[in-house]
């Protein structure tokens, strides 16, 4: 298991930045969840916002494994958290295939259950849960998804 922690977990509360790198497998998700929950609490987010961050990050990482890598065990997942006075910033990096976030349609809401197509709510949730989402790709640094949660967000 690849696990690189730039700053030990116990230091997370005084750190300005902390990074966790894990194999792109679903079993890494609880570890990444724990890591961002700690960071979100350290940033002073309330428990509702902490859950929002945990959910958005989980959906994003699951998408990376499913869509960017196209399966488990293909490449690593890197999660970097950093915080500023008023916000928590989470950066997810992978080296899978790039995508166009603008091309992902929002899911239909309010349809009958039989009309629901499985999939297609993860990205919508990420946008709803976070205050800001940015995506960029370069061949050198791969896919970079930046998600920002304001401390005083509603």
């Amino acid at each position, binding site marked *: 298991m690849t696990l690189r922690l730039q700053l030990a977990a116990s230091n997370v509360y005084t750190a300005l930045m902390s990074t966790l790198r894990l194999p792109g497998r679903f079993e890494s998700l609880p570890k990444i969840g724990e890591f961002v929950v700690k960071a979100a609490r350290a940033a002073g987010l309330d428990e509702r916002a902490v*859950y929002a961050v945990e959910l958005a990050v989980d959906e994003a990482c*699951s998408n990376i494994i499913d869509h960017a890598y196209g399966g488990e065990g293909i490449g690593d997942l890197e999660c970097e958290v950093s915080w500023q006075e008023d916000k928590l910033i989470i950066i997810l990096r992978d080296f899978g295939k790039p995508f166009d976030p603008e091309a992902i349609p929002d899911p239909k809401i309010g349809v009958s259950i039989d009309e629901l197509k499985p999939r297609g*709510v993860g990205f919508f949730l990420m946008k709803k849960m976070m205050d800001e989402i940015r995506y960029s790709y370069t061949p050198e640094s791969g896919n970079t998804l930046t998600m920002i949660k304001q401390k005083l967000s509603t």
Partner: protein
Amino acid sequence: MDISITEYKRCDVVKANGRIDSSTAPQLEEALNSIIEAGRYKIVFDMSDVTFMSSKGWWVLIETQKKCKRYKRGEIILVKVNPNIRDSLNLVGMGSYFQMFDDLTAAVGSF
């Protein structure tokens, strides 16, 4: 995640704990499918110890609900849904596909 299934006369109670995410949702799917494959379509999902649920888990519940409601033969009811999970389900309009109870006995008694 641990999953238990308790069979009552008219329904089955499924209880899971911890996180339901991409890694554990298949386990939940398997448990729910085993009930449906046994010809039983009235299911109570006791979520009192489920602390986290991603969309992968929700899809399992949606697919189960579709199968249970077919031919009006049953339904899956959710019990003690953590408020964070409930809020996120409602955010995408999925909360409306499920009856949610705060009391396990009441859910079992509703069948």
